[in-house]
């Protein structure tokens, strides 16, 4: 009886140890963020500047996300939003970010990606399930951690983070037309910022 308990305990400890082994070696560095005006793709309206930086290179994806995301059918895009207006306040709802034009995705990851899109056409990470491997769970957690967060932007406030855009897994990447709506906290009017890259 005692032998069985010891054996079971050893098995459980081994399972826990092996399960964690894959993640222990996974470190996800923070993606560097520059001042908003230094980015190539940016738009300025009513004192608000929004910049976007698509992370196209596989090497960079592997460095910051520990995965070839293009092969999975999505492109990480860093968004930086700065409220440079002197007095206005804006509400940024990250779930409202979307694509100006939806498009069909082709390639291996197409079906999986197609089932995990928001109404705006970008990837909803809560719908994108990991394949179950420990490494994949960690990759998914990191994608969520790096996701841009909803926020109230007072004068001078900056928010940054990633959105994930569905792309074809093969061939040249099509141009992406991203729409970022911000709501003026006082008037309730919605300002839509369009960025293409």
């Amino acid at each position: 009886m005692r032998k069985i308990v010891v054996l079971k305990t050893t098995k459980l400890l081994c399972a826990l140890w092996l399960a964690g082994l894959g993640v222990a070696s996974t470190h996800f560095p923070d993606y560097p963020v520059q001042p908003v005006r230094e980015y190539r793709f940016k738009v300025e309206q009513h004192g608000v500047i929004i910049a976007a930086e698509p992370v196209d290179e596989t090497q960079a994806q592997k460095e910051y996300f520990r995965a070839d995301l293009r092969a999975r059918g999505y492109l990480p895009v860093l968004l930086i939003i700065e409220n440079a207006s002197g007095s206005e306040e804006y509400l940024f709802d990250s779930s409202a970010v979307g694509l100006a034009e939806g498009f069909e995705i082709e390639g291996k990851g197409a079906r999986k990606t197609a089932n995990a899109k928001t109404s705006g056409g970008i990837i909803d990470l809560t719908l994108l399930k990991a394949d179950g491997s420990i490494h994949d769970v960690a990759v998914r957690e990191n994608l969520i951690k790096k996701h841009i967060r909803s926020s109230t932007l007072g004068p001078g406030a900056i928010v940054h983070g990633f959105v994930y855009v569905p792309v074809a897994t093969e061939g040249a990447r099509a141009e992406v037309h991203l729409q970022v709506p911000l709501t003026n906290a006082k008037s309730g009017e919605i300002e839509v910022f369009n960025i293409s890259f």
Partner: protein
Amino acid sequence: MLYRHCGYALVAAAGVLLSSAVSHAQEPAPAASKKIPLTAALVLTPEFCATVNKVGKKMINQEKFAVGKEACKQLEPALAAVFTSLARVEDSANTGDAQVVLEPKFDDVGATQKAFAFSNRELVLVLEWTVRDKSGKVLWLETVEGSAKRHIGNTFTHGSNLKHIIEDAVQNLTEQSVEKMASAPQLRRFGALPVK
């Protein structure tokens, strides 16, 4: 005679101490004076309270973090210190006369496992807050992140450590929520508006 004088002195000293204690009790607490003068309704739906983060592979190493249950236990008393009055409701359609409605929503982030039973692992929770006025207009939108680190533990301590990492992460999340909400200029300004 001497004993009698000592007795009077003791009674007088006790009286002074007692009156001092009472006057301290009657003074408003520092936190209370900083409360936002608004009546708030905190919407904790049964779905929110039932939120469970599942981490790992089913039947192999899956762990369940019942973060919703703990959040529903901690958020109400903590946020009661931010507003002059706070009522907990289960449905955003039944908020009564509340001037503002507070709605939390969990984002899906789990625990990072580490290799050894004696090493630390981290549980990260992300909560998105939406505060609306009576008409439904969004006044304030903010995301808060709470985390806790604890030993994964062994066969015997794993259950207890799991319970504590949830409690600690939710406590951190609650503290962040209180801090951000209490210092939100949008809410303070709205609270300073004359009541219609």
